């Protein structure tokens, strides 16, 4: 029975997100879903606390959280993925490789990312990373070190890597 409640709460979050995306105001798609999904998740927590046993309520919350994460993964994929962009273009009919190459030319890919970063506030009006942008870069540089991914333009040596980074990104 609890699973039906999870489906209902999840459907409410997805419908609420669709409405939030059509309202004017600030915030990107992820922020808007975090607000709607978080609020409805809070409702599910209260529901689970009062109406379910502990394991069933816990299971309902875990399923809701996992479904939300999967949903965020899917809609961010639709919004940003190069592969999805190619698929959507091919949905209009066959294209030659050169047509796809022309539609997704490299300068416009970079421009698209820059526009998106401006829209979500990672790049400031002055054209440079905002404090939010700098924090995000610092976070991902930490993750790159944890996963041992190479940092573009930097040596694998940790000391050299740090000194090669722009000063404000060093952490």
């Amino acid at each position, binding site marked *: 029975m609890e699973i039906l409640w999870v489906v209902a709460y999840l459907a409410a979050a*997805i419908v609420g*997100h669709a409405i939030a*995306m059509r309202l004017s105001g600030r915030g990107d*798609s992820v922020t808007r879903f975090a607000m709607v999904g978080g609020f409805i998740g809070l409702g599910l927590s209260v529901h689970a606390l009062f109406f379910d*046993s502990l*394991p*069933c309520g816990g*299971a309902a919350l*875990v*399923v809701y*959280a*996992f479904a939300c*994460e999967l949903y965020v*993964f*899917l*809609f961010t*994929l*639709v*919004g940003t993925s*190069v*592969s999805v*962009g*190619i*698929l*959507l273009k*091919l*949905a209009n*009919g066959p*294209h*030659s*490789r*050169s047509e*796809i190459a022309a539609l997704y030319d*490299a*300068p416009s*890919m*970079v421009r*698209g*990312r820059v*526009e*998106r*970063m401006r829209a979500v506030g*990672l*790049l400031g009006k002055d054209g*440079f*990373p905002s404090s939010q*942008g700098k924090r*995000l*870069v610092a976070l*991902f540089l930490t*993750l*790159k070190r*944890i*996963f*041992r*991914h190479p940092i*573009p333009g930097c040596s694998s040596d940790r000391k050299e890597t740090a000194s090669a980074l*722009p000063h*404000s*990104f060093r952490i």
Partner: protein
Amino acid sequence: MLAVFGFYLGAHLTLYLVLCRHLAAFQRERVIFLYHALPAACVAALCAAAVLDWPSVDTLAQAVIVVGIQGIYSLSFLELWSLSQIGYSLGILMAFEAGRQSGDTPDLRPFEAMGEQKKAGRIEGLTRLGLVNAEGQTLQLTPLGKIGTAALRALGWWINLRRTV
């Protein structure tokens, strides 16, 4: 069941941090995916066996919690791994900051080259997945690709997304 699962999850993460991340093989997408997918499949199979052996609401709830947490852990890990590996937008942000510090215009040419590589790799990837059929120079969606694309387009319409590129 939950305590054993907690121990396994801790061991899985510790093994990666202490040993696996230092191995060259773990820089490959396929290997890191299998590092998560195979144990996750085992966890799901063990949970199903537990529910069949001790059928009760309590066991079922615990099995759902275990599978759900495994899903959240693996999906989060793989997303962060993938985002920090590619780092296209991240690199562009770094170039802007480097430009601000040096007083020069940011050099975005390396990212244009990276974009070309990404695009070429994606077409081959979509062909391998059976979503796109490449006959000579012409690209078109396969029947599976049409179904997948219709679903993605519906999701895009549902949340009113406007793609730039």
